[in-house]
């Protein structure tokens, strides 16, 4: 990782004032945000709706000026050197409706490449290659208005990557997409960062699993403030020391002995007579207690149907930080 970060913000603040007092109140969308994203990172910004994620991205992509504080992209001051910044970035938003319905996919994409100074032939080669990778080759000559939602979003993602930016901002890129489409996009993002030299991604999302899967580091943001910034594993470690296990066994008559096993902090159960199962849930201070629990279950004549270890999730992290789940 180089010395110059891909993105750096210092006490970045953005306040929105209503046009007229009666039209609403002042909103602090970003509140003294300090962030540093190194080159080559796949960085996630996690937060609920209205947390300030999109506002931050708009500032970093030169669409919005901060009220105070500083921001640098690829080492360039956003306010003074925005042209240099624009040469090095691109942005894709979820649910984007940009483009012209009358043009074909290829034509739309070509048009945008021309704004980045890419020679026509090179642009067409890149477009074709990316469309192929995203499974849109057969849609190349179809008019944009005929695309499904997932296809349109894939096209938008292609538009973002076709200019080969140093830094790409992805604002909820898989919003509203099905599993396959989302997976294609995620796989491409991972691949792009891994294979590119110092390619950086700043991804906003409120899909926990997506952030967990993709990101090297995650910042949790709420009400314009960064609450935490670390790797997903370290963030989860902040939540609890205890381990949670879920054990499904055939209907267990006597459960009392399970609560007395050494290493068991808490234990709950639910009997499902219809399925002849007992669902047991343990919070353990010592993971080795699992073997004693299994022995006790078997000794009582029950059989093990399934055993699952539940790790703390990012949602757990978020709830702990913010005190609420995602709305």
């Amino acid at each position, binding site marked *: 990782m180089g010395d110059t970060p891909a993105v750096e913000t210092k006490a970045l603040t953005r306040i929105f004032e209503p046009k007229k007092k009666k039209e609403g109140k002042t909103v602090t969308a970003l509140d003294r945000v300090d962030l540093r994203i190194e080159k080559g990172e796949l960085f996630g910004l996690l937060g609920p709706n209205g947390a300030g994620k999109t506002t931050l991205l708009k500032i970093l992509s030169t669409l919005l000026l901060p009220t105070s504080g500083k921001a640098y992209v690829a080492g360039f001051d956003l306010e003074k050197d925005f042209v240099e910044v624009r040469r090095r970035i691109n942005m894709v938003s979820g649910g984007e*409706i940009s483009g*012209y*319905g*009358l*043009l074909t996919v290829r034509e739309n994409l070509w048009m945008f490449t021309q704004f980045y100074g890419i020679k026509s032939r090179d642009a067409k080669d890149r477009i074709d290659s990316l469309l192929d990778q995203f499974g849109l080759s057969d849609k190349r000559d179809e008019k944009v*208005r005929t695309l499904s939602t997932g296809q349109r979003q894939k096209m938008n993602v292609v538009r973002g990557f076709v200019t080969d930016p140093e830094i790409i901002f992805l604002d909820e890129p898989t919003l509203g997409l099905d599993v396959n489409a989302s997976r294609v996009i995620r796989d491409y993002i991972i691949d792009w960062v891994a294979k590119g030299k110092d390619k950086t991604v700043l991804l906003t999302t409120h899909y926990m699993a997506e952030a967990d899967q993709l990101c090297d580091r995650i910042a949790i943001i709420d009400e314009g403030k960064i609450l935490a910034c670390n790797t997903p594993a370290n963030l989860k470690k902040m939540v609890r020391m205890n381990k949670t296990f879920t054990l499904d066994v055939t209907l267990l008559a006597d459960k009392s002995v399970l609560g007395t096993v050494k290493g068991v902090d808490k234990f709950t159960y639910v009997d499902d007579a219809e399925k002849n199962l007992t669902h047991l849930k343990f919070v353990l201070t010592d993971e080795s207690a699992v073997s004693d629990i299994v022995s006790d279950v078997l000794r009582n004549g029950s059989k093990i149907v399934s055993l699952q270890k539940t790790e703390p999730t990012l949602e757990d992290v978020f709830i702990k930080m913010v005190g609420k789940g995602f709305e």
Partner: protein
Amino acid sequence: MAIVSGLRTFKNAAWLGWEMEANWTDPFLFAIYSIVKPLAGTLILVFMYLVITQGETQTMFFSFMYVGNAFYMFVADVLFGVTWIIHDDREHYMTLKQVYIAPINFRNYIFGRSSITIAISSFGVLLTLIFGVLVLGVNIDFASVNWPLFIAALVLGLATLAIMGLALGGVTFLTAKHAMGINEGVAGIFYVLSGVIFPITILPGWAQSISKFLPVTYWMEGIRRGLEPSVVAQLGPATGLQGFSDLQLMFILVVTAIVFLFVSLGIFRYADKVARRKGKIDWTTAY
């Protein structure tokens, strides 16, 4: 139930139409806009006339032209308004499909939206007439206005315009972002051929034959006979419609309104079906 539902749709659409027309700026600017726009359009003709007649406005022909041009605002605004509704909802706000699939009569929605256009245009027309009478000496004697004829002609004419707008709205489903072209064209046909700013007797014979098939021709005549009977009387055969009595004129207006109702409904229904078949209800055509 259907009537109640239809009225509710009409009312809600009218409310939306008002919000769309008036909510774009503060009331003062909206008032300026509502005054300047209609007057400016009228003054083009006024200046054209003044240039040639060296400033003389107190002539029968000037009154004829002025009144026709004032009421023509309804034609332009209603026809434009309806096509713009479809275009705007579809291309800019992308709400057309949501409205379209709602359990309402879409025609009532169009009528409701265009009713506001008529209401706003009425203000412009009235303002223009007042300006003409007070400042330019347009010959309207309120004591000799034939109110029953004028009101009947006005109502029938506006209804016919709204109905024609429906047909144009249907056509707009099928065309790209050329809504202005459609309304401009159709309104232009009326402007030239319907005796709006000059009597149809100026036109070549074949054009006059077409004029006599257009409802706006009779509408203009009915408006003038009601509002400025002395002007029409003095112009006499020059108007080209002196052979029709007031009652015949009203009858023709009623018949053309009914004919256009069926024609417009037919065009709208057909265009709607084609648009649905071709997936054009929610297409976007901006470039």
